[in-house]
């Protein structure tokens, strides 16, 4: 029949991003292969107060959710602003990449990205203070993510003795 036009089959929202998990056990090729087959999404920029129930309600609009794993601060074991959402089928996860990524949950623009698959231990933040790395270094004040970044918080507490 007629050609399948590459220019018309663009589905860029479902493409694999540049991010690669540095702690992944395996080589880049294996990681990419898993990302391309995965039914699991990493979800970032959540508020610390966003619940599993809210995540379930939103992501269920794209299909049946198999499980949700809320990301935790490694030390405090409290939510630290990310989670994993696993679907039963890849097609449902693709719809989430197309229609949930970049929209709001709990008033915040959330971001979704392909994940190679949940493994025990990956539910913990990898920042030195126990939360996510991004919360270590950021300079802005975000009340839904513990206020100032961890480094900025330290600076603030050491600054005070000098002011009169």
């Amino acid at each position, binding site marked *: 029949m007629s050609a399948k*036009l590459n*220019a018309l089959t*663009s589905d860029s929202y479902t493409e694999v991003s540049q*991010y690669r998990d540095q702690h992944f056990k395996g080589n880049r090729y294996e990681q990419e292969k898993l990302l391309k087959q995965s039914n699991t999404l990493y979800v970032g920029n959540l508020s610390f107060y966003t619940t599993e129930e*809210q995540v379930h309600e939103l992501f269920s609009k794209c299909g049946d959710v198999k*499980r949700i794993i809320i990301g935790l601060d490694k030390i405090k074991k409290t939510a630290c602003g990310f989670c994993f959402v696993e679907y039963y089928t890849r097609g449902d996860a693709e719809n989430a990449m197309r*229609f949930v990524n970049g929209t*709001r949950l709990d008033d915040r623009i959330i971001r979704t*990205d392909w994940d190679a698959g949940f493994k025990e231990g990956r539910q913990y933040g990898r920042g030195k203070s126990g939360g996510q790395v991004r919360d270590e270094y950021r300079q802005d004040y975000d009340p839904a993510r513990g206020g100032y970044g961890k480094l900025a918080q330290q600076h603030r507490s050491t600054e005070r003795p000098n002011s009169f």
Partner: protein
Amino acid sequence: MSRRRHSDENDGGQAHKRRRTSEPIEIEDRLESLICRVGEKSTSSLESNLEGLAGVLEADLPNYKNKILRILCAVARLLPEKLTVYTTLVGLLNARNYNFGGEFVEAMIRQLKETLKNNLYNEAVYLVRFLSDLVNCHVIAAPSMVVMFENFVSVTQEEDVPQVRSDWFVYVVLSCLPWVGKELYEKKDVEMDRLLSQIEGYLKRRVKTHVPMLQVWTAEKPHPQEEYLDCLWAQIQKLKKDRWQERHILRPYIAFDSVLCEALQHNLPPFTPPGHMPDALYPIPRVIFRVFDYTDAPEGPVMPGSHSVERFVIEENLHCIIKTHWKERKTCAAQLLSYPGKNKIPLNYHIVEVIFGELFQLPLPPHIDVMYTTLLIELCKLQPGSLPQVLAQATEMLYMRLDTMNTACIDRFINWFSHHLSNFQFRWSWDDWADCLTMDLEKPKPKFVKEVLEKSMRLSYHQRIVDIVPPTFSALIPAEPIFSFKYGDESGTSLPGYPVSITVSNAIKNRASNEEILAILKEVPNPNQEDDDDEGESFNPLKIDVFLQTLLHLAAKSFSHSFSALGKFHEILKNLTESDDGKLHILKVIYEVWRNHPQMIAVLVDKMIRTQIVDCAAVANWLFSQDMAHEFTRLFTWEILHSTIRKMNKHVQKIQKELEEAKDKLEKQQHKRRDSGDDEDMEKNSEEDEEGQLEEQIERLQEKVESAQSEQKNLFLVIFQRFIMLLTEHLVRCETGSVDISTPWYKNCIERLQQVFLMHHGTIQQYMGTLENLLFTAELDHHILAVYQQFCALQL
């Protein structure tokens, strides 16, 4: 160590195409790109771009003719919104190279035959429309186009074919006339008149039983929900009255008239419509969705009337744009907003109407619901000064007409509106809807607001909802989603199950084994049983109640905690729910403890079906039971029911797929064995063993499929039976009391019955015989039977 960070602008993904090294492929990509992109925003005019492209392609014909033919055929099929751009291009090529024009027409006819064979009827419409516009470009001779139309319309004379078949052929002809009606009438007015009168006769005798089932509103005012063929006929009639003057369609070929009229035309080869095949899947009928008319756009250009052909063309093109770009919301929104000719029409109104038309389409929207929500958000971002107002206006109008809106459409309205609000801090002028506060809560308007607030709460939290609505709305605010533990407070201590609940709770906290817990539960008295009866192997509702309430109370913190609890005590739960009574009771208990948190009920029911603690029929029976009658009109009830049916359907499909795969594997094995006839005996034996195993597996899978299908059929029978019982009861009661049957409950129930048919029509088709013989017989009340007959009429 380099720290790779997530890019924060993951707005559309970066496609990194590896550089290709082989030249011909590069050129083919370039050709594709050139052809696909012509007509898009450019510093030069469309005409000069087309002229330039025609020159390039003409030069490439000697080496790349077939590739160019295939690309052009593809854009004809896949980019219908740019129809006239590409017909002009073909016209220019035909003027420069007559043979190429002829080959293109032949290729298109071949493609048309293929698409019809493959049940791609919607794409076939675009192909025929393309061919008809080629008449305007002097590529195809008008008389031969008229002959093709005559062949299409002659299908209406066929006997014993589904009405949807002849519908399609009539639709194709009518839908081409906005583009080519004028030209065809100028050349062959006698034949065209005859054609139109044949069509008119057909439309008059056509059966329209299916229409009520597809209408978004039952009311005729303010906008009648017209059947699609009736509407198109009215539009063509009006066009004819206007002497085929059509001013909306962009026609680049007019600028090239002097070149094109010098070209030689081709005659379409005679095309006989393929005969009806039993497995043909013609498109289902549609109803045209209208929410705006010319009085609704307060300033700026006027909206073309509902029977103007402009309205048809605009809506067609907007639908096509969505069909092409739905996966990429930014592109889709941009393409919609840059619709050519947008300055002469209230484009925002058309866009909102078309999007809602798709969202509310019955039986199902063309694309997943959430796509429309996100697309509207994108559109609001691109046109922040104008689109949100139009959207708000449409929402207001939809609210005003809730009384006659189809229940399934109200569901989608609820889901859309709550999700949309959650992206805009739940800002809404709730006071505008204060009229719903004085109504009976079962009426559509207060019910709608209540459900919206409930869904909004799920996307936020209870206090947020309290904060966003005026205090006058407190009756509509959902309950706080907290656990109701009967053994938890003062009054609980006197209940018969209380002591055991304390023991069980401690046992669970101390990680007792399943055996230990079962032993504890043996102490629970059975209220159903006579004293001194058997050892209590029969169904003991109190046992289930005590164990489940206690367990779920301990696990109430989150979904994950509850799932973990169900998993850990799976054995006990299966033990307690062996009987059908047990299964029903476990559902009752779940409802009792979580009645203020329907979202939790839904996820628990889902988990229990998947882990086979309850089966689908049990869930259906529970939802229709007397205990749940007061929740019968709530959205969550139907979400659970449809989710249950979907799980059943997916289960059957999964096993069928496994069976197919096993059969394929066996076939391959058998081929392999036949092909390698001279092998040693040893290998032959092991191959025969493998085949034997496969044959056994296939037999087992066959049984599994049959058993799954039997369960599926039973599920539908249960559901339909329950509907019939409830509806008949209501109708009889009203009749004897001489009361009007049309209560809000009745409207909800009868439309929920419709919804089951519509949402699962593919699956239900298999069981029509049984349904007709057992349930939907002539003895049934005609109100109920009408729903079944309308459903059958969809594929007549």
